[in-house]
């Protein structure tokens, strides 16, 4: 495997082109099971996307006047963004609370978050009927500032930029750009602070989109606190995704990860499991409070009530207790299972708001059920994201250690801060 560019190796555009051309070549085996399965789906998906763009949304989706939002919004965007929440939580823990324990996971999570926003929020582009107007909320003279979606669209854009800045030192290390890396690394904390504020607002903003569908969402799900619920659930959704994705990438990219880190990963998982249990419990507690205040007891006896209880008990309370169990007995298998369950809970919850508990009174024959083409395109988007992630992880220091010259810079800075810091600390003590 060809390593990163050496510091200062790339001096001009020609070097750069040579380097990029070399890096574009595939690095692993080409005919793996994953590739053989995923490539046809991706190609089919992209063919369907062309049909969608030429003939309109109705040609590939089962959307209707009754159900204007399908899985491209309810799953790709709503669930994708919730799962990408791991990035803002881990950066909070590592850069704001400075817990070094989780540091090894930050880059992979930030990269995942960034790609999730690019691909899944990018799915909005496919879902927009008049996609060529996608820049209208950003440029122009007619801003719908009273719209929740206006806020969400701006936040998506700004947050993608923040995530890219957070990840960019890895790109600079890959290219061997020493000075650029230094500048980009100095922006990280600012990007993190900004990113967390943006995430808080657009995670809850996605929920706020449904506030005006008051008459259409089942009363067990509709509450004025939807934004808060969406925000809190994004915490365990994101962390569960980190557990899930981390487990997979630690197997797939095992050769890139040094022994120490492999060992510490188990401790990290237990820590994440603890956080998930906490967030799930807070979420469960809020759901119960809302249920009691809503005085909708009688609805629990209806079929939709059963569905509500399945979500609340089976996909919130159960994973919460599984996480607790896994943390208590250091059982990683149980923690992983709990992560999958709570992720399933998020998928069901977001689909409830957009598809299932949305207009629950419409008979099944007239309901929206996604077409195979919608599902294929969604799969194609997910698989493309995995391909891009793999491409980057195989080339840039995402899971593996940063190159030595970048590490050196950090140690130098450390000793400088120590020397400078001593008198400062004395002054503040007086």
């Amino acid at each position, binding site marked *: 495997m060809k390593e990163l560019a050496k510091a200062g190796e790339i001096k001009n555009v020609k070097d750069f082109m040579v380097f990029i051309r070399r890096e574009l070549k595939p690095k692993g085996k080409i005919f793996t099971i994953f590739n053989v399965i995923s490539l046809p789906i991706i190609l089919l998906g992209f063919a369907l996307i062309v049909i969608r763009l030429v003939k309109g949304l109705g040609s590939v989706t089962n959307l209707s006047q009754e159900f204007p939002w399908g899985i491209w919004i309810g799953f790709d965007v709503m669930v994708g963004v919730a799962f990408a929440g791991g990035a803002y939580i881990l950066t909070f823990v590592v850069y704001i609370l400075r817990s070094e324990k989780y540091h090894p996971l930050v880059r992979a999570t930030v990269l995942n978050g960034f790609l999730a926003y690019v691909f899944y929020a990018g799915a909005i582009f496919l879902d927009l009927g008049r996609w060529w107007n996608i820049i209208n909320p950003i440029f122009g003279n007619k801003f719908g500032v009273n719209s929740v979606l206006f806020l969400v*669209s701006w936040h998506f854009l700004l947050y993608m930029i923040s995530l890219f800045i957070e990840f960019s030192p890895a790109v600079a290390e890959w290219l061997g750009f020493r000075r650029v890396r230094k500048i980009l690394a100095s922006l990280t*904390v600012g990007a993190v602070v900004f990113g967390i504020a943006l995430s808080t607002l657009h995670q809850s903003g996605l929920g706020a989109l449904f506030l005006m569908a*008051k008459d259409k969402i089942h009363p067990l799900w509709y509450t004025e606190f939807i934004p808060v619920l969406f925000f809190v659930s994004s915490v365990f959704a994101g962390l569960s995704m980190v557990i899930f994705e981390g487990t997979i990438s630690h197997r797939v990219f095992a050769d890139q990860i040094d022994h120490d880190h492999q060992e510490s990963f188990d401790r990290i998982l237990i820590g994440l499991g603890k956080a998930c249990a906490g967030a799930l419990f807070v979420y469960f507690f809020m759901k119960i409070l809302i249920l009691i205040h809503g005085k909708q007891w009688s609805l629990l006896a209806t079929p939709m009530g059963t569905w509500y209880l399945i979500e609340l008990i089976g996909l919130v309370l159960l994973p919460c207790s599984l996480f607790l169990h896994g943390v208590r007995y250091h059982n990683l298998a149980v923690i992983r299972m709990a992560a999958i369950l709570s992720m399933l809970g998020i998928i069901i919850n977001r689909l409830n708001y957009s598809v299932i508990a949305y207009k629950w009174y419409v008979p099944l024959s007239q309901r929206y059920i996604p077409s195979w083409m919608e599902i294929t395109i969604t799969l194609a988007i997910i698989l493309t994201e995995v391909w891009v992630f793999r491409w980057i992880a195989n080339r840039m220091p995402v899971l593996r250690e940063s190159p030595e010259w970048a590490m050196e810079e950090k140690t130098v800075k450390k000793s400088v801060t120590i020397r400078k810091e001593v008198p400062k600390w004395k002054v503040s003590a007086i």
Partner: protein
Amino acid sequence: MDIDRRSFLKVLGGGMAGAALGNTLLPRRLKAAEIVPPKQFSGVLVDTTRCVGCRSCEAACAEAHHLTVPDINDQSVFEKERKTTVSQWTVVSRYNTEKGEVFVKKQCMHCNQPGCVSACLVKAMEKRKEGPVTWETNCMGCRYCMPSCPFEIPKFEYHSANPKIQKCNLCWERLKKGEKPACVEACPEEALLFGPRKELIEEANRRIYQKPGKYLTHIYGEHEVGGTGYLYLSKVPFEQIGFRTDLGTTPYPEFTKGFLYSVPLVLLLWPAFLIGVNTLTKREDERKRGGEIR
């Protein structure tokens, strides 16, 4: 604590960016000088007791907006409740009620404070000062207006590469010329009455009081979702003629107002809090091992 110039500027810059952002995102408050003397929205009063189901309004509407003109003699359309479509901005439905057959014309209600308008992130949907809620082509096709409409009126052209939102615009192009909406002009039974909303409510009340027992003492649209431009009179309860009576009287934009007001607050307070925590943890950290995070 001493702050060097660099970190001071960082914090200052962040705060100023936040403040500027907060300002642009806050729904703007009107200044006294900007407030124009109140002008009544115009609307239409539909007296369902007068409607005979001739569908002249449908034909007139289609002609006025270059849509497919329907065959209005076809009685089979009444077999089930009808909804507006991408090519029919207004439809008449027949309802079998406790007091016999009732015909009801449906179309956009032209709310005083429309959910679709506040949902639209590019102001493609607009409430005009004359009263109509109209759609423009700068629309992105996100279809957020559709779940946000209490009456499920905006219809989207799914089978077009250049799709539009289709809905009644209260003949805005005619209103600007001082003409009445096409449907109102076409109605042979005077079931439709066009005028300023306030006068329509007075007229509706007059009809209710003058003929006791003929009407329900309720004008649908007077208070529903904060008031609508279209107002309905009926002799039977409104649920029986296809109206939702559980919508409440709160204007739909109110539902998102609380969330939107919290946005500038979060954008200002959250970064301040985070920077504070970051600073606190830094000092402890540095004391311990002088760590500078990457």
